[in-house]
């Protein structure tokens, strides 16, 4: 069985501080990994993806995530957050079939 665990339900952080949102997965086969973001009152949108190749993937707004097969992790990081990064972040896994397996989400709250 496959599963995704997001270790923190809420992460409060001050503006311009670094942040890490943790994601661990469980799967017996090769995986594709994703981070989706949900801004207030909106649907989810893809933030970044790992399909193959380089284990470090980056988004256009400064987030990055590293696929670590030995630790079965795909943590999301940003060196300096902005108020506008306040959102719910979902880690997701795909390895067979059609559907994604989502984690329960981490709420990132950035304050001045």
């Amino acid at each position: 069985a496959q599963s995704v665990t997001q270790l923190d339900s809420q992460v409060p952080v001050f503006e311009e501080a670094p942040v890490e949102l943790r994601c661990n997965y469980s799967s017996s086969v090769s995986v594709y990994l994703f981070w989706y973001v949900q801004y207030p009152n909106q649907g989810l949108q893809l933030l970044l993806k790992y399909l193959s190749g380089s284990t470090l993937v980056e988004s256009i707004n400064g987030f990055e995530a590293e696929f670590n097969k030995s630790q079965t992790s795909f943590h999301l990081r940003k060196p300096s957050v902005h108020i506008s990064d306040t959102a719910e972040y979902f880690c997701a896994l795909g390895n067979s079939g059609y559907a994604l397996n989502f984690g329960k989400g981490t709420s990132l709250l950035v304050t001045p």
Partner: protein
Amino acid sequence: DVKVTQSSRYLVKRTGEKVFLECVQDMDHENMFWYRQDPGLGLRLIYFSYDVKMKEKGDIPEGYSVSREKKERFSLILESASTNQTSMYLCASSSSGVARYIQYFGAGTRLSVL
């Protein structure tokens, strides 16, 4: 840009009513999905469809049905709404191959069943 449109942002219904939630995508995607989102539970898959008239149950299909008569439209039906179906409902679509995991979401329908 891919657009996934859900017909209502907010909906209030009575217990026992039949409820239709509609979703339309404009990118000729093969796959469409219905999720419900609840605080602390994340997203849970209700049903998905990989082709017209084809559907598969997700993790929590009980109390729901779906219809996909046209490629661009995927409807979620609550045959007899109950209070425990009060939730945020999200529709998504995706294309084929590995891109099936790159899902595009609508803005959601917040359903309250009284």
